[in-house]
């Protein structure tokens, strides 16, 4: 059975039963922005992220000279995708750009894609988007047929199996062309890693780039008032091995950089730090999305950060009706400012509260501290497991080094802020957070709990606050 491409829309919760629909842990979509978007986090970060990116894009589009090639990097759950959605819904952007979105998780095989896949996907999506845009403007996009045929000539080395399927050869009519594009998209998603030996790799990329450039020329002819903007989303997700990102954005960085396209990609924080010099993206076009602090440098509650999160939550739920105050505070602490974790924990705690009420109808129909504690302990177990090193994990940093680094950051040692392999690995796992202002690092409250566990017998370690403060 075909799955719907989008989950149901967010609905504000007025009781515990409404929690799952209110706190769907996915970025807000354009149609949800008015009701549920809160700029509280942006105000707290105070770096005018969206306005800066929008202004830069508008300037590049108006000048029609250089190409904007930017990256957005920040930890999971800080709101990158929501910010991108807001950006693309902006009137100034919509009036200047034809937008092509590439989703690393949904359009590519995140375990095995190659730069050739990214180019193929760009070709397919560019044809589709230009055709849609022309239709929207009441123009014909006659080049679509030529483009698809052009593309087919290149397919043999990449899609030997697809080449033999009938659908691929039926490109004379409109539906035939759609068949080809659909099949290609599926092929890119399912197969990944186009098979090209090392001799042919560079030549294949050159040919793909040449096809893409011809399509860009055709698109510019048909839509001369627009620039082309590619949004690469979810390239920062943990499912994607760093080696694939290295190939796409470092080893073959010139392939994407040399295209006549404006680019905005999301990349993982450690990757950006580790390969900063070698990335094709200019320094002034790298936009960090900072974490929102729950605790300050002295390990005391950061009122600004917590208020920003509460303001955001209030958009989605009647907080007084749903959460006991101490339960809400614990949820904030356990999230570490990570919206994804916050929403996931809320859903879990909400479910526990609902079961409690079903089993004991006399109990309070709100999320209580014990509900949250149970959910948080579960999160803590997962978090601890993720801190180690799996057998096939390219992260070979020993736990002792990571622990030492974690402690140094917690204790505010200045040298701890100098990035090294251990810090990158801790950032990757969100054990360490990165805040704005002076670019301060901090330890996630869940990681503080792990520190306490691990160093319980170390008399030199002093707990200074910033943990979960559980009752059990």
């Amino acid at each position, binding site marked *: 059975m075909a799955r719907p491409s989008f989950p149901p829309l967010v609905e504000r919760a007025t009781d515990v039963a409404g929690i799952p629909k209110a706190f769907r842990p996915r970025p807000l979509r354009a149609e949800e922005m008015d009701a549920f978007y809160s700029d509280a986090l942006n105000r707290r970060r105070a770096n005018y992220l969206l306005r800066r990116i929008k202004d830069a894009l508008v300037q590049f589009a108006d000048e029609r000279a*250089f190409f904007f090639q930017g990256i957005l990097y920040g930890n999971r759950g800080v709101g990158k995708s929501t910010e991108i959605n807001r950006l693309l819904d902006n009137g100034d952007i919509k009036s200047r750009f034809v937008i092509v979105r590439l989703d690393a998780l949904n359009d590519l095989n995140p375990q095995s894609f190659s730069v050739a896949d990214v180019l193929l996907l760009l070709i397919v999506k560019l044809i589709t988007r230009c055709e849609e845009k022309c239709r929207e403007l009441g123009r014909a996009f006659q080049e679509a047929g030529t483009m698809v045929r052009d593309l087919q000539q290149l397919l043999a080395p990449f899609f030997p199996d697809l080449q033999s399927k009938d659908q691929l050869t039926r490109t004379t009519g409109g539906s035939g062309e759609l068949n080809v594009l659909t099949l290609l998209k599926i092929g890119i998603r399912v197969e990944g890693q186009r098979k090209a*030996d090392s001799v*042919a790799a560079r030549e294949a990329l050159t040919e793909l780039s*040449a096809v893409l*450039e011809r399509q860009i*020329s055709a698109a510019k002819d048909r839509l001369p008032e627009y620039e082309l903007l590619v949004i690469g989303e979810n390239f920062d997700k943990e499912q994607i091995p760093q080696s694939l990102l290295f190939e796409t954005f470092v080893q073959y960085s010139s392939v994407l950089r040399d295209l*006549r396209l404006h680019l905005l990609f999301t990349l993982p924080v450690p990757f950006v730090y580790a390969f900063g010099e070698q990335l094709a993206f200019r320094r002034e076009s790298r936009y960090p999305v900072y974490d929102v602090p729950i605790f300050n440098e002295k390990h005391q509650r950061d009122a600004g950060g917590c208020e920003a999160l509460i303001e955001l939550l209030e958009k989605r739920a009647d907080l007084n009706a749903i959460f006991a105050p101490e339960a809400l505070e614990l949820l904030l602490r356990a999230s570490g400012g990570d919206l994804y974790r916050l929403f996931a924990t809320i859903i879990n705690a909400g479910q526990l509260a609902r079961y409690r009420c079903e089993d004991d109808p006399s109990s309070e129909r709100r999320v209580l501290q014990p509900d949250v504690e149970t959910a948080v302990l579960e999160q803590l177990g997962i978090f601890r497991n993720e801190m180690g090193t799996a057998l096939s994990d390219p992260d070979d940093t020993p736990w002792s080094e990571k622990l030492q680094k974690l402690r140094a950051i917690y204790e505010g040692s200045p040298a701890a802020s100098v990035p090294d392999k251990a810090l990158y690995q801790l950032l990757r796992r969100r054990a360490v957070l990165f805040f704005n202002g002076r670019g301060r690092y901090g330890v996630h409250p869940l990681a503080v709990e792990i520190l306490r566990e691990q160093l319980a017998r170390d008399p030199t370690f002093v707990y200074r606050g910033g943990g979960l403060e559980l009752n059990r």
Partner: protein
Amino acid sequence: MTRGSIPWVVRSVRDWSLSVKQGTALVTYRSGGAREEAIRQLTAEFEHNAWRSETLTCGGCTAREFVDRISKSGADVLFVLDPDRVLFGENNELSPFWISFQRETIVEHPGVQIWWMLPNAAIRFGRQLPDVSRFFLFREELTDEEEIRRGVSADLEIQLPRREIVAEDAGRGRDLLARALRAAGSKADAGRVWLELGVPAIDAFLRAGQTGLAVDALTKLAAAAGPPVEALKGAMTTPDARVGGALLTVGRLFHEIGRWEEALAPTEEAVRVFRRLGFLPQLGTSVNNTAKMLSYLGRPEEALAQAEEAVRIRRRLAEEHPDAFLPALAMSVNNLASRLSDLGRQEEALAQAEESVRIYRQLAEGHRNAFVPDLAMSVNNLAKMLSDLGRREEALVQAEESVRIYRRLAEERPDAFLPDLAMSVNNLAKMLSDLGRREDALVQAEESVRIRRQLAGERPDAFLPDLARSLAVRGSVLAEDQPDLAMYSFSEAIRLLTPIFSRYPQALARLMREIREDYVKAAEASGVEPDATLLAPITAAKPGPIL
């Protein structure tokens, strides 16, 4: 003043325009820079005669706008630049029949129209639009030396590796150039303008095989943003591979148009960049290119040193990653063979040529289509090396293989491989003749002449020297038994070569000298006095170091 030069074309077009006052002329050109200069001088000439001129570029206009702009122009002289772009489309996707219906409108323009086209476009225009083509009341040809400096010897022909031309549209280059000019106009950093937009535009034009447009881009952007090499060097605070790559592209452009001195400087700078970065693949490419440029500049010892280094680098790379770097190694080894041969070190050259063939044969077996042309090239060069050493039977075997491969390739893609086939057939004729198999040699020589006559009919500047070379080989085959026919063949070669030789005596001196000597011998053998009129222009040409 020589035919085809800028002063010649300016005078000729000016005189015709002033005499007819209304009509359409066609000027074919090979270099964008030369075209710009000719238009600049013509504009000045017309202004001097109180004529108003206007230039119509039709890059971005529609067919309707194109016709409208011509018919509504009030200029006395209208320069129409590259109308083929609007007629045939950026990617040759349009059928230009519609212009036939507009021809009356176009020619009704009350002034003079001078249409400028590249030779290929003019040929296509003539074939597809004969009705419009006949309205060209006057034709002139603006030539430069870009394609003239191909060969210098009537002896066996060495072949250079093909240029890398990927099917790419010139539209990309135009878009990037327009952006670069806008950026330069807004006083953006010149280094960034060249690096991110200007050099990529040039690269796109070169990849599209549009050298003229690449030169145009260089000229226009240099005027707006300053010279590229200085700007690129200024953009580099530390060695930067992207800047190194851009310098290589600039060098490649100058190389393409035969300006070796100007090509050498950025290429040597690229060598320095990649050497400091330790990027061996790019270093191999830049050192290899430096060797070729030094060779063209007549510095064979330095060229040899560079060629040897290129082989050393690429051999090391190929040992580690044979799949990725064997092709580059084969190319460098092939070049090294030529550099050694330049210095008369034939035995060593032969060893290198043999290695090049060995590698290309191995590659062609694994990736048949991609490396077959390279294999044919290397086999042809091996035949030459063997022949130079007097090992004629072995040379013949190689020459026959080269012909066999090129014949198959030319059947599949005549546009791309007929010139190569003609070259290899000509070499085969020479080798058969050296072995005393004159009848077989004559058959091959006739075929070579026939192919090159056809090619020279389409692109005289590019292929007339080659045709002369084939005629000379045919003459040498005939010389012993039929000196009168040989004399006829040599005299035709001299007659065809003379106009180009007058313009580029240095480049063609050796070829012309050899043909003249053979002609004089054949005339003596036939008991005929050499034709003094035929030889006069050769004698009149300023003696270069060879003559």
